[in-house]
């Protein structure tokens, strides 16, 4: 299903699936019962991780309508050494 979605949307980046929300829980990003049918889903969040595995920038938005824009991410990624 996500493969079809990626192809349709033209996504070239790695698209991972976390059906049991294990990693979402490990990152403490679970939003219980917020799915359309009351499923547990992730709150939207973006992390920029440098080559040593350290988080250099993160955005846990306070409003799920407002997400990181591509230009914001590109600007932050440009500061990676």
């Amino acid at each position, binding site marked *: 299903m996500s493969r079809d979605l990626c192809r349709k949307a033209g996504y070239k980046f790695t698209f991972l699936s976390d059906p049991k929300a294990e990693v979402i829980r490990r990152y403490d990003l679970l939003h219980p019962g917020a799915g359309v049918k009351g499923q547990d889903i*992730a709150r939207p969040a973006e992390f920029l991780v440098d080559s040593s595995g350290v988080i250099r920038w993160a955005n846990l938005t306070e409003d799920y309508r407002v997400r990181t824009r591509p230009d914001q991410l590109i600007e932050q990624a440009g500061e990676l050494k």
Partner: protein
Amino acid sequence: MNQHRWNWHLWVGFALCLVGFASLPVLARFPATRDVPWVNFLLFGTGLAFLFVGLRRAFGQPQQYRGKIAGPILGTVSVLAAALFCFVVFYETRQLPASTGAPKVGERAPDFVLPDTSNRPVSLSSLLSTPFVNTQMPPKGVVLVFYRGYW
């Protein structure tokens, strides 16, 4: 001659409020109109102003204008639509968990292994260390995007 004129202000105001309400999903596609939904607020503001003028005419000059019945109905629906819109934008979409345990800037991102679209296991460390095909260099970093999807 005492002919009642059509109170068009009421209907224009109502229509603007409806558009202001219904256009949120469309305008939310563009960051410029999503992060602060100013176009919707403008539509609501203009619509309610028209309704105000229309209601004043309906009740202030009832000999000239119609709308003593339609006006309050359209006005009430419009105010409710504006209130619901504000509730969603200022309250509902901000109800997010505290996520106090989320990894912070300067901390190491917890490693993980998850299946990609071909069901191959992918780890964060492998994403950080796998060189690009064209440059043979590993990436300077990885962006993790947690998305509220259902796939």
